[in-house]
């Protein structure tokens, strides 16, 4: 039986990888991917706690279903924003998209 701590460790590592990616990368599409990694790391923690503590009716896993919904919505809208910004000016780097800066 794998200890619960091992799952939480993997989840935390993936979360911080994603976090570093969001802070560090320039490309907007890659930043979206890193956000997905962070959401997925959270999913692993949810499922691990839910399964190992024997939650009634998989209460923890239900939140994973909601995270899936959020992730899909976020990617669709995020890519929409990136594409419409790209159509105005062909850049995808977040530090060059500053049209709304005063």
């Amino acid at each position, binding site marked *: 039986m*794998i200890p*619960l701590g091992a799952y939480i460790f993997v989840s935390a590592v993936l979360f911080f990888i994603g976090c570093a990616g969001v802070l560090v990368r320039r490309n907007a599409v890659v930043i979206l*991917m890193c956000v997905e990694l962070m959401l997925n790391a959270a999913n692993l923690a949810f499922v691990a706690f839910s*399964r190992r503590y024997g939650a009634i009716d998989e209460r923890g*896993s239900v939140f994973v279903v909601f995270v*899936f*919904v959020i992730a899909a919505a976020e990617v669709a809208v995020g890519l929409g924003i990136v*594409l419409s910004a790209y159509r105005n000016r062909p850049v995808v780097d977040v530090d060059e998209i500053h049209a709304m800066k005063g």
Partner: protein
Amino acid sequence: MTFDFVEPIVFAMLSVGVIAAGAAVVLINRITAAALLMAFTFLCMAGMFVLLGAETIAAFQVLIYVGAITVLILYGVMFTKSGDRPYALFFQHQTPIAAIFVAAIAIPVLLLAFSFNAPAPPPRGGDLPGLATSVFTDFAFPFEIASVLLLAAMVGAIVLTKRDEAEGADTRRRERR
């Protein structure tokens, strides 16, 4: 003869896959490769869900992340084609500060992670009946709200990416000429 040694081996392979592919997504220069590696991370994650006995969640994971989100992101990559850039232009200015910041939070959390321990769970079957019961009883209202959110996101994405009517007519006229 027992097969108890299989589970740790599978877990080790999956965790190496998750962490290595996740790190490569951040570090690799080619965006298409990063998108595929992200899909690989998601697949390994689905394997972890199966190890935990949450097979429904694993199936949803593959269905939504690999089948839909990765394909969407690949679409995004193809429509915003920018050539491979030199490695110097790859990271933002705040990289050192960001790295220190992340490390400062990450190290204590990672040290704490191993301290979690649960009593041996009661043996259970799959998670399908429990999950379905929860979603359609106690969490029915959030579930409906989530569907409204999805609808809003769909409308928003369509409005954001729709070309203006005038612009479309303009290009059509140009093509005819």
